[in-house]
Structure formats: C-alpha cells, structure tokens
C-alpha cells in the first residue's frame, strides 16, 4: 500500500484515539451496569434495561441531535460544564468520544452481562461463605471469570466506535483534524468530484484496521481460554 497522506493519517489516528477513549470511558460504567442487571434485583430493572438499549434502536442521528441539545454550548448540561469547568464538548474530539461511547454502551453492557450471567452464582455464594465481601467476590471471582465477556465487550465497543458516523457528525460535525474520523473522511471524499480513489483507499484502510482489531482480540481470547479452562 502506498504512503498515507496527511489527511488519511489524521483520520486514522483520530479514529483509533476516539475508539480507545470510548472503550476506556465506557467499560467501567458498562461493567457496573452489567453487574447490577445480572446480579442485583431492584425495582424498575426493566426500565433501566430498556433505556440502555435506546441507542441500538433509534437512528444514530437522533442520538447525535439529543446529545447536541443536552451537551451543546447552549444545552442544559453543556452550558453548565462550560460555565463551571470551561469544558466544551460540541465540535471537539472529546465530544466524538462521548457520541461513540453512548452508541457503543449497549453493546458493551450486553456482552458483559451475558458473561456474568453465565457464571454459576454458586461460586459467588461459596466465596461469600469463605468470608469474602461483595467487592472481593466481584474482583476475585466474578470479573476474572467474566474476562472473556469483558474482552468481547471491549472489542465490540471499539469496533462500534470505529464505525460511528451518524451521532458523531450530528453532534460534533466534520472538522478535519478534530472530529473527522475515518468514516467521516470517507464520506467527505465521496462528496467531492474526483474523490473516489481517496475514498477507496480509506475503505481499504478501514477494513485493515477492523481485521487487525479482530485478530488481536482473537489472540487475547485464546490466551484467556487457556488461563481459565486449561487443566493443570
């Protein structure tokens, strides 16, 4: 493959950066939510479950617009953040991270929740009889046994971030070097005359990144399986 142009480099780096941050920001919350949903009975669980899944079922543009209304400079939360911390999310790469995280969150929660639900609650009960409090049970039994699900959740979240388009472009626009991730760059090239070769290159680059991420996750999953299931 020929050398990458500065625009392509910028889009690639930005995509990876947004994806990594989305996973980093989203995972702790996703783990906590998944654990609550899988293990703790509480009233209104179905409602919480439904709310979390909203980004999966409404058009991304709607989510992006909702984020703009809430977190934009004049939005209730955005104005507050701006006034007290001088933080502005709209039209910044941090805003792109927020958009990606919201879109990826239900996928992460789902993968983690399934793997926690697959753990025999008897093991956690046994740990409790052995004197372990809830935090210790979570840290030493539940999370290690859910590791494959944590990995799957992180990979799904990362992949979802790489592909995020609608919510991002609506919330933080399409600013080169700031919010123009690979899908946005690709879209931009298809909108200008003579942009097809560049769009094609970006498509191949996107595919390459996706395959690399999948291969890496498969390698890690194999390591985990060896550690969890592997005899002596």
């Amino acid at each position: 493959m020929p050398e990458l142009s500065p625009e392509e480099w910028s889009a690639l780096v930005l995509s990876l950066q947004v994806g990594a941050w989305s996973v980093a920001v989203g995972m702790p919350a996703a783990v906590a939510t998944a654990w609550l949903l899988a293990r703790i009975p509480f009233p209104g669980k179905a409602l919480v479950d439904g709310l979390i899944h909203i980004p999966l079922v409404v058009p991304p543009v709607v989510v992006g617009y909702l984020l703009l209304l809430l977190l934009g400079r004049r939005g209730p939360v955005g104005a507050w953040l701006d006034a007290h911390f001088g933080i502005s999310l709209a039209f910044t790469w941090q805003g792109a991270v927020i958009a990606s995280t919201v879109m990826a969150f239900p996928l992460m929660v789902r993968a983690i929740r399934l793997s926690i639900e697959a753990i025999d609650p008897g093991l956690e009960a046994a740990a409790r009889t052995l004197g372990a409090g809830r935090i210790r049970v979570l840290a030493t039994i539940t999370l290690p046994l859910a590791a494959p699900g944590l990995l799957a959740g992180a990979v799904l979240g990362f992949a979802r971030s790489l592909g995020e388009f609608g919510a991002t472009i609506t919330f933080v626009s399409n600013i080169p070097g700031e919010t123009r991730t690979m899908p946005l760059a690709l879209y931009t090239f298809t909108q200008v005359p003579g942009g097809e070769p560049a769009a094609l290159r970006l498509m191949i680059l996107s595919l390459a990144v996706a395959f690399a991420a999948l291969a890496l996750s498969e390698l890690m999953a194999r390591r985990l399986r060896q550690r969890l299931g592997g005899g002596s």
Partner: protein
Amino acid sequence: MIHIDIRARLGRFALEAAFDVPTDGVTALFGRSGAGKTSILNAVAGLLQPTAGRIAIDDVTFFDSTARIDVPIPQRRLGVVFQDGRLFPHLTVRANLLYGAPRDPTLTAEPPSFDDVVALLGLSPLLDRRPPGLSGGERQRVAIGRALLMKPQALLMDEPLAALDGARKAEVLPMLAELRALRRVPIVYVSHQMDEVVRLADTLVLVSDGQIAAVGPVEDLTSRIDLRPLTGRHEAGAVLRGRVASIEPEWGLALIELGQQTFTVPATDLAVGQGLRVRIRARDVAIAVTPPSATSVLNALAGTIVNIAATDGPHVDIRISLLDGQHLWARITRKSAAALRLEEGCPVYALVKAGAIDRHSLGPPPGSEDEPA
C-alpha cells in the same frame, strides 16, 4: 448445643424445622432428596433466609427473627462443603485452599495448619493444578481442605460424596472420619446414604417433607421400627457399640467385646481397646433357637426376642435384646418364624456372618475422644 428453630418457604415447599443437637460430634441430616435437608443447611450458612425463627451454635446467634439478627454470610465463619465442590476454576488448588484463610493472626494460628490439611487430604501433588483438571474425588478433597483452612466455627457438609462413584467415595470417606482430629468443631452432615451416616455421625436428624421426624443418637433411631420408612427398608438394621478386645492378624479378624459376648469383624487396622460402632443390617442376621454348632457363621449372639413386626411381604422384622442390653434387628421369612414358633420372650441366638460386615459398617464411637485433642 446447635439450636435450630426455623420456618422457611421455598415456592410451594414449606420447611419447619426445630431441633437441638450437641455441638460435640457429627450431626447427620438424613432424608430423601427434596426433604429439606439442604435447605436447613443453607439456612445455617446464611444462603437461605428463613421467614422466622432462630439459629445459634452455643452462644453465637446467627439468625433471630424476633431480635432482628441476621449475620451476613461472610461474617458467619461457617465452612461449607458443597455437593459439587464449587472450586474456583480460574485459581490454582493452592489459591483455592487459601481463599478463605483468615487474616486475623490469632485465627491463623489455630489448627489445622496448611501443611496438616495438605497431608491429611493428600493434596501436595495437586497444589499447582487448576480444578478443571482434577478428578471428582480430588475436587471434593480440595473443597474440604478449603473449608477447614478458613478455621470455621463449624463445618457444614452438603452431601460431599453424592457426586462421586464408589471408588472415589472410598477414597474420601476415611478422610472425613479423620477430620475431627484436625479441628474440633461441630460438623453438620447432610446425606441420603445410611452407610455414610452410620460411619460418620453421632446424632441423627431425620428430615421428611420439610419436617423433623426424629432426633437422637444414630443407634437409637436406626433400631426403631416406626422410623423404618425413613431410615430405609433395605438399610434396616441396628448399630452395636463395643470395644476392640483383640486382633487376629493371621485370620484378618478383630474381636469386638459386647458385654460378656464377643463379635468378630473382618478388620485388622484397629487398635486394641479402641471404641467401635458396628452397623448390622437386619437382612444379614439369621436366627437359631439352639446354640448352633458346626457352622461357618462366626457370630452367634445370645438374646431375647422383644418384638416381632410383621411386614406386608414375606418377611418379618424381629427385634432382639442382647445380653448386654443392646438391640439387634433380624429380618427373616414369615415361614421360618412360624416354623421356629418365634414369639416375644423367646431366647434365641442371632447369627451374623462376619463376611457381611465390611469397612463401611465400622465407625468411630459417638463423640469419640480417643484421638489426641
């Protein structure tokens, strides 16, 4: 004293259990599957919350609905051995064993030590392995070790042998009998196997349909005919208590003293003077009205018939009071009973083939204080 007085509801199943048993020794909760044995054990462990009642061991109260006491599971310090072991698959055997080890140094210093547990249960070759690679017997041994090493106030065992085949059972059962030498704590043992109960337990709690049917020493309950439906028809029998009088190594036999009479069992790994319990199944006992001569049967115990319980089938169960006051059950055919004109008060000889007594029929005496503390 272990005090249990609880009511609980599990779906359509109602549990109502109240009994007191001595803390010194092994208490067996015995009954059919679904009788509520495990639920009682889980209530003690804190894994099941009773709707009302009280649970206490000596002066430690774990649950009291009127005083609003419900000690959280991790603070109960009760070592639970589950039927399925429940080892943590991602941890090595060593890490499993030490998972519940207390951090409090005074508790850490209490017996048994890590090395003692590893030695008794034969775990040293397994320490660096992980549970998925272990056999069923090995897993249960690790589970027992893990419960002991948390230095529990009591051991609660929920059919620890039920998932094992005969050979694995024979591997673990003798170790269970020796546990109390390592740590003198009350043991509550759930089982539906009478041979395990007789081998291990001192006190028997019969559980049936969510109720307690009877509580008492193992010998007493297993010889009561009214409890037969619960203690088991094929397992019908009695337990005799005696002391090892001598060993005959050339024959592989041991002579057990029962008052003035002796009883022969096939075993040599016993110490002279040691207390012993022998379970004798009713179907292994025959009756003679005159002293038998020229017979291969080694044991002929003199006694008197105290009652004859007819059953529906071709058999009768006959309770014989031996010279030293202990009781034995014999199951013979109605036809033989009629031919010999057996009736209450008849002096008879109870004939027991020594070969009918196996390793599983012998156990330590209740509250055995023979081993060094």
